[in-house]
């Protein structure tokens, strides 16, 4: 059997990323410690090539490998976002790994393999490819979380992530097997037409749907499936945490929305209410528990749970049973916009955390930021911008993201949901601005002598500049990004 060239071309970006990952893993043992960084540049080069291929694929819809893979603008949007996030993570890691004295090129190999899994997830048209993509992403992330083999916290985070991740994959796979049993296919399009002719109250169908919600709920860290998030985010190396918080969440949302809006779109009367409950629980728990955190990575973990809750508002709007197609499309595009904006502000915040590492000690307690504005005005100002954006205060990008989500909710007749989310955004301002208050309004501790050592490097400066530019430009002039998300949405039925 020969593979048609068109199929190969459709998955060219995935092939480039996997090829680069394998090249890095092979070259790692024969590269001297001083030259390991060169291997990171192979990864960046591969990403640049992928951007070119994906941009050229935008605007067309191609099905490949007997409908296992779909390349459409929706997949293209997520892939472009994932390239940007991965590129910035590699740059962030260059600085961070040097600071940690970890000369491991395999780190970049696994980062790219994880990216390949995410790319498969977002361009999957079959539950088989979605499962394989999810597993490739997760297995690589388990390894990355524990890559600091000598540190107990990192290993513990890795073990917890592994146990709960494998558990959730088991549940997801069981849901897929039941769905296969009900519909006789694992293709999303075939599932959609099989469901169309069935009663909505089929208990087996509902069970399969709930198992899929649980499986994806773990991946996007929605309440009540969020309990791994704070521990794993706190224990993992900061650069890995940033990657997990941004890229794996974006890819999981991409696959999740395709499964539920395309495959299970006929069941939206059933899952709409379920998502509404999960969305509100996620918003409340994420925002309220973040208040009492003293470790900044843990606080950002709860904040990422809360942001998953905001994004779920858009999913609820997209699955609204009575709203018009136009309003539901607005809900879908606002999720994509929100996750793109969330990527910049969260990466920026984690980059500042990585920047403030003090020789051998993680500058992770919020108390460590006391009087930072006096000691390190630039770092403090960057943190200020990211915190303000995460809180959703204009003129930053965070405000634009929340604005479109709330507008969708109001137009779908869910005004009360927008009000609840707005009140919780006010709660979130408390814990974000507390960091700002600690930095700007407290005097540096007299016992802290001299300047804190910054882990500054040109690579980290590029990451911070890109994140800052993303947050500020999307806040002031969001039109290009909004237009891109509106062109890239799925066709809703």
């Amino acid at each position, binding site marked *: 059997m020969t593979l048609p060239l068109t199929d190969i071309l459709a998955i060219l970006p995935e092939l480039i990323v996997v090829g680069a990952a394998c090249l890095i893993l092979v070259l790692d043992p024969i590269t001297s410690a001083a030259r390991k960084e060169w291997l990171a540049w192979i990864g960046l080069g591969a990403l640049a090539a992928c951007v070119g291929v994906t941009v050229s694929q935008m605007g067309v819809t191609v099905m490949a490998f007997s409908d296992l893979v779909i390349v459409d603008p929706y997949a293209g949007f997520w892939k472009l976002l994932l390239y940007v996030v991965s590129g910035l993570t590699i740059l962030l890691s260059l600085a961070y790994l040097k600071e940690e004295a970890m000369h491991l090129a395999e780190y970049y190999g696994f980062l790219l393999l994880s990216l390949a899994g995410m790319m498969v997830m977002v361009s999957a048209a079959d539950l*088989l490819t979605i*499962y*394989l993509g999810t*597993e490739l992403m997760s*297995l690589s992330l*388990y*390894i990355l979380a*524990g890559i600091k*083999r*000598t540190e*107990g*916290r990192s*290993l*513990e*985070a*890795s*073990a*917890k992530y*592994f*146990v709960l991740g*494998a*558990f959730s*994959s*088991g*549940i997801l*796979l*069981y849901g*897929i*097997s*039941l769905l*296969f*049993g009900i519909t*006789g*296919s*694992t293709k999303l399009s075939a599932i959609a037409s099989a469901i169309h002719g069935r009663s909505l109250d089929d208990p087996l169908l509902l069970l399969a749907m709930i198992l899929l919600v649980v499986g994806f709920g773990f991946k996007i860290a929605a309440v009540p499936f969020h*309990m791994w998030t*704070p*521990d794993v985010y*706190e*224990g993992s190396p900061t650069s890995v945490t940033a990657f997990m918080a941004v890229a794996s969440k974006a890819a999981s949302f991409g696959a999740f929305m395709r499964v539920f809006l395309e495959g299970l779109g006929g069941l939206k009367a059933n899952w709409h209410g379920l998502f509404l409950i999960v969305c509100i629980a996620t918003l409340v728990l994420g925002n309220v528990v973040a208040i009492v955190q003293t470790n900044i990575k843990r606080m950002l973990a709860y904040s990422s749970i809360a942001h998953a809750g905001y994004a779920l508002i858009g999913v609820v709007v997209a699955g609204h049973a009575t709203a018009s197609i136009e309003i539901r499309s607005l809900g879908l595009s606002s999720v994509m916009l929100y996750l793109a904006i969330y990527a910049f502000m969260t990466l920026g915040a984690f980059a500042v955390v990585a920047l403030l590492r003090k020789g051998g000690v993680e500058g992770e307690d919020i108390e460590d930021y006391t009087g930072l504005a006096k000691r390190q005005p630039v770092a403090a100002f960057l943190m200020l911008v990211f915190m303000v954006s995460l809180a959703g205060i204009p003129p930053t990008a965070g405000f634009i993201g929340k604005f479109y989500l709330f507008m969708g909710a109001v137009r779908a007749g869910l005004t009360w949901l927008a009000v609840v989310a707005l009140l919780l955004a006010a709660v979130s301002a408390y814990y974000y601005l507390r960091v700002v208050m600690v930095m700007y309004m407290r005097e540096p501790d007299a016992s802290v002598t001299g300047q804190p050592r910054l882990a500054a490097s040109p690579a980290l400066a590029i990451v911070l500049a890109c994140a800052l530019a993303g947050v500020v430009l999307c806040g002031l002039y969001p039109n290009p990004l909004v237009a891109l998300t509106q062109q890239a949405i799925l066709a809703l039925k």
Partner: protein
Amino acid sequence: MTVPISYYLVLSAIVFLTGLVGVLIRRNIIIILLSVELMLNATNINFVAFSHHFHNVTGQVFVFFALTVAAAEVAVGLAIIIALYRSKASINVDDFQLLKW
């Protein structure tokens, strides 16, 4: 004589629940890993049974992929457990207290 599909479903549900409960109540991380494997194998029973029922090979193809992924998962999982055992000399999840569970 053919075995009705519902028998397979009941068997797989029992195996799946055994695995699910095992993950939730056992404290030894190796037993937890074995319980996850039970959950995955329950899925495989489902796929093969449905595949036979529908006269459709999709389910059997899925089983091959699921088995491969499960093998990779065990490899990564055992590596993590060995690294953890070296640093803590324990594989009981109650001893992993550095991060608030």
